[in-house]
């Protein structure tokens, strides 16, 4: 089957995808990283090397905002890992119980928040938590915890955590579904073998099922990481581009948006915006590499 002539049909099959992907995704990605190396001086683009990054990391005016956004972003991610994934795993464990009735109904209902847009989720929770409407305080009152109520979204200490929990509420369906699939894939014989050895109930979950679903938990963690470090919509919908109060909910996505488009008295700056995009790219790349080379290869893959 040695053919020297070009098989044109391969080119035709590949061309549309490669062209769109390259021009709309890959080239702008590198062009943005390139823009970060320039600056605007008297309406002209001048090459400044890594100076924008130096400004971003060390110039107090910028660095304070940058480290604030980066730190907030890590906190945002930490809440997802600590709350979203355990709840998702617990729900999946319940749903995968072999004799549970209405499992499909629960599954579909719990997944509903995930299909809603950030705009709906952001505003809906903003209204519910608002002291003006009073749903949250009166519901807390009803269970005797009324004194705990505070206008969380308006307070610097709590706003970011509250928004992270709202985001957890929205996306818990995804880990739930993926873990559910992983649990269903565990063959009955393995569980029965465990029962013969007296491993049932809780200990069956911890000793048999959990180790078997670790690869799925790894995938969920990296998906969460990428999604969180690229988040923007929820914060923007609930708190606006200024990520208030006093930038306490600012994450890299909102910081980049504000820098690029400008706000209030500050003019938009595509070059500093690109530098922030570069930093986001670096963080995501490091995360993905840690997952691919550090976690995925070491995770024991059981032959199922």
């Amino acid at each position, binding site marked *: 089957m040695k053919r020297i002539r070009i*098989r044109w*049909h*391969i080119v035709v*099959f590949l061309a*549309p*995808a*490669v062209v*769109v*992907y390259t021009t*709309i*995704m890959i080239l*702008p*990605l590198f*062009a*943005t990283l390139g*823009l970060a190396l320039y600056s605007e001086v008297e309406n002209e683009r001048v090459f400044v090397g890594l100076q924008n990054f130096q400004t971003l990391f060390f110039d107090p005016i910028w660095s304070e905002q940058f480290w604030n956004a980066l730190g907030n972003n890590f906190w945002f991610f930490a809440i997802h890992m600590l709350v979203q994934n355990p709840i998702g795993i617990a*729900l999946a464990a319940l749903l995968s*119980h*072999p*004799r*549970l009735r209405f499992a499909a109904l*629960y599954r579909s209902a*719990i*997944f*509903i*928040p995930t*299909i809603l*847009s950030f*705009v*709906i*989720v952001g*505003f*809906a929770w903003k*209204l*519910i938590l608002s002291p003006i*409407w009073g*749903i949250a305080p009166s519901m807390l009152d009803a269970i005797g915890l009324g004194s705990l109520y505070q206008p969380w979204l308006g307070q610097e200490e709590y706003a970011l955590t509250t928004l992270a929990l709202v985001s957890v*509420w929205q996306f*818990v369906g*995804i880990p739930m*579904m*993926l873990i559910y*699939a992983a649990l269903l894939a565990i063959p009955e014989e393995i569980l*029965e073998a465990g029962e013969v050895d007296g491993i*049932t*109930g809780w200990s069956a979950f911890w000793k048999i099922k959990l180790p078997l679903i670790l690869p*799925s938990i790894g*995938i969920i963690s990296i998906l969460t990481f*990428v999604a969180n470090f*690229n988040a*923007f*919509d929820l914060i*923007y*919908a609930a708190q606006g581009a200024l990520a208030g109060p006093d930038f306490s909910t600012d994450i890299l996505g909102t910081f980049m948006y504000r820098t690029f488009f400008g706000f209030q008295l500050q003019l938009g700056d*595509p070059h500093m915006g690109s530098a922030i*995009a570069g930093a*986001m*790219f670096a963080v*995501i790349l490091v995360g*993905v590499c840690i997952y691919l080379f550090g976690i995925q290869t070491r995770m024991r893959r059981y032959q199922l």
Partner: protein
Amino acid sequence: MNKARSNPINAVAMHGALILYTLIALFPVFVIVINSFKTRRDIFRDPLALPDSESFSLIGYQTVFEQGDFFLYFQNSMIVTVASLFFILLFGAMAAYALSEYRFRGNLLMGLYLALGIMIPIRIGTIALLEMMVATGLVNTLTALILVYVAQGLPLAIFILSEFMQQVSDDLKNAGRVDGLSEYRIFFQLVLPLVRPALATVAVFNMIPIWNDLWFPLILAPSEETKTLTLGSQIFIGQFVTDWNAVLSALSMAILPVMILYVIFSRQLIRGLTSGAVK
């Protein structure tokens, strides 16, 4: 079934936990929708009560229809979503077929290159993308959005579809070749119909994120004529923030289309998510 795994007390506890979480998941949606049908006074007096003949009011919806062009936004969202899905499936399936069917130099490298985009979000390149769209005059057009979503959706689509294409029997394709069918006809008439379930999975995965996206409509197509439903409701709510009837009605109207899509496609979506297509 073993006794140890079906204990009645456990069953009650399990249903209790699941019902509690289901209520948490549905409560905000429920509150928004019921209050959108009430008068302003009743929204505040008893937010948890269902609308009755006394408190029922459509004033919010009236404002929404008078002040916002929601039909246009809806139409824009439809055009963007449907066109993006069509091209993701068409281009994705073609590329997946080329990668899984033919051996050629650079096959593996091309596969890796196309897979890069699964992990790297397209938003990182937004600034240069906007400059490019401005330079080509595509800014504030639906075409810009469609191009972006196609580029964003292709990597995962190609990845999922190539796995399925590998399972299509070679005998069938070779039979087609013996009958003198061109490679194009083999792909479109023999292979494509066989991977329909995979195409549906890819479509459902892409549909919701495209419909709900706020970032690219906000940056690439914020003009009045090209606003999508997500952006349109964001801006509308921002302007009417003190008019609770209008805000609640706008939110309910934004919830409605995705709920309809979900009811139609939820089985497909859940089957896709749980079939291991994402592994």
